[in-house]
């Protein structure tokens, strides 16, 4: 046919680049270039409320973080919020998946119920919880506690309760994700392994610990990675439910960067905070991915 090998390869390469380059170049332009701009802004004194003080600040914004108690507070909250929501999602999601797996009928209904929170916009979830679920006296939770004689609470108004509440909201919305993924994984496990273990008189707990858990470990790690990313940049649900308040009691780093930039209009410092969040996100994802690769080989 007159086509030699290198010709075919050339042709394939050219074809591939025509297909791939538009997306690649566009992403460079719309994601990477803005990040460079963000990094540049983080080195500036840039306050839209006081434009006359603008100027190069070097690492001034980063130095300022050292003695900014609100920054350390938001960092601590980010850690607490991310770790507790991810752990809760895995624990509840896995337990529920193990339970539902043993149910012969009705799994479909549970899957549908699980999809509801996932598809809702986080901002709407925040609104639902702020009004119908957590409102004092008439919210669902207070209706239950009142009926049980436990009294009523200001779930979103008290600093500590508010933190618990936003953790609960995030866990409510995203546990179905862990549940669905783990249920799908569990359903693919070969049943004969468990049969053999049962014949060896391994009890339920031993079977779970020594057989199920190692088999679904990759899925668990994957869920942890994805959920950590979501929790680190959680925004709309908290914003709608508490706005970061009362005070700064639910202000995770993401919200602090947002509020600094768009409520206080201090874009320079807000950019620096966003860069820190970006660095944390990259560090965490890199660590988790490396951990997974090590575990899978």
């Amino acid at each position, binding site marked *: 046919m007159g086509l030699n090998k290198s010709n075919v390869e050339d042709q*394939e*390469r050219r*074809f*591939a680049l025509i*297909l*791939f380059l*538009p*997306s*690649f170049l*566009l*992403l460079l332009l719309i*994601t990477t270039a*803005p*990040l460079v*701009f*963000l990094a540049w802004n983080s080195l500036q004194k840039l306050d839209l409320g006081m434009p006359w003080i603008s100027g190069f600040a070097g690492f001034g914004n980063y130095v300022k973080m050292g003695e900014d108690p609100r920054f350390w507070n938001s960092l601590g909250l980010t850690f607490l919020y991310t770790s507790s929501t991810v752990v809760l999602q895995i624990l509840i999601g896995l337990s*529920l998946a193990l*339970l539902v797996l043993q*149910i012969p009928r009705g799994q479909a*209904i*549970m*899957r549908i*119920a*699980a*999809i*509801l929170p*996932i*598809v*809702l*916009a*986080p*901002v*709407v979830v925040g*609104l639902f919880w702020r*009004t*119908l679920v957590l*409102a004092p006296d*008439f919210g*669902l939770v207070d*209706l239950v506690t009142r009926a049980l004689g436990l009294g009523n609470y200001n779930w979103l108004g008290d600093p500590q309760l508010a933190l618990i509440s936003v953790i609960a909201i995030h866990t*409510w919305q995203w546990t*179905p*994700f862990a549940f669905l*993924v783990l249920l799908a994984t569990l359903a693919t496990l070969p049943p004969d392994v468990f049969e053999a273990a049962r014949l060896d008189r391994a009890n339920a707990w031993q079977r779970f610990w020594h057989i199920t858990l190692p088999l679904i470990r990759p899925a668990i790690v*994957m869920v942890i*990675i*994805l959920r950590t990313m979501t929790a680190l940049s959680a*925004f709309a649900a908290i914003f709608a439910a508490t706005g970061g308040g009362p005070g700064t009691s639910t202000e995770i780093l*993401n919200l602090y*960067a*947002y509020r600094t*930039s768009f409520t206080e209009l201090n*874009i320079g410092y807000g*950019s620096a905070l*966003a860069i820190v*969040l*970006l660095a944390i*996100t990259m560090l965490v994802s890199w660590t988790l*991915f490396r951990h997974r*690769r090590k575990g899978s080989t």
Partner: protein
Amino acid sequence: MNRFGRQVTLYAVSGLLVSVWAFPVLWAFLTSFKTERDVLAYPPMFFFTPTLSNYKEVLFGTSSILPNLWSSLVVTCSATFFTLCLAIPAAYALARLRYPFRRASGFYILATQMLPPVGLVIPYYLTLQRFGWLDTYSGLVIIYLTFSLPFAIWLLVSYFEDIPYEMEEAALLDRAGRWRALWFIVLPQVGGGIAVTTVFVFLNAWNEFMFAVVLGGNRVRPVTVAMFNFISVEQTQWAKVAAGSMVAMAPVILLGLLAQRHIVKGLTVGAVKGGGRR
């Protein structure tokens, strides 16, 4: 405990946990048909005379959300359209063809998906402000591509990898040309995958909030932002908030139920392969 007792316990516990997920949504659904007085009745009412006045109010009243639904529809559909036009060819190349830096560029696309939105919205705000593109459809559609394009590429890659090589090879040997092979042989086979991708891109764009609240405005205000403003203006009118939420979320709930068998795949895209592609 005997087997029957065990079954009952299983159903009771999982039923309870599942109702924790479904109940708030169903409760909002009920609330949307209540009068504001019935909403605050104690004990709460499960049976009441339903009214459509809340829906009438949020759709045709003074603070109608119809313009916001339109904004959402325009932004979401445009973003979905451009995403698919760009993502389908890119995903095909990434899944099937050999070219320099394929692995590295695939990983780069995955990495762009993990960026915290707040890091993007700040430079976008400054840039769009300079060009006078705040509160325009174009501005929002561009920033929506930052999350929908990487997502769509990776989801589509998984579908392209599922189809067998043989048919393409046969088409190529027939000198059909690569474009014709892609268009007539490959694309028809990933129709389902493209449909699923469309659903998820639509869903994510429809639900977006942070970009919309910062870069939108009076003219372009997606429905998520309208819902948020609703609560700050009408603090105590829960029935209206519930009705508005039901209208705003109806499209995504329907799409979610439609795509329910694919939802696990849609949610875990990228992470399955991202750690170490072949």
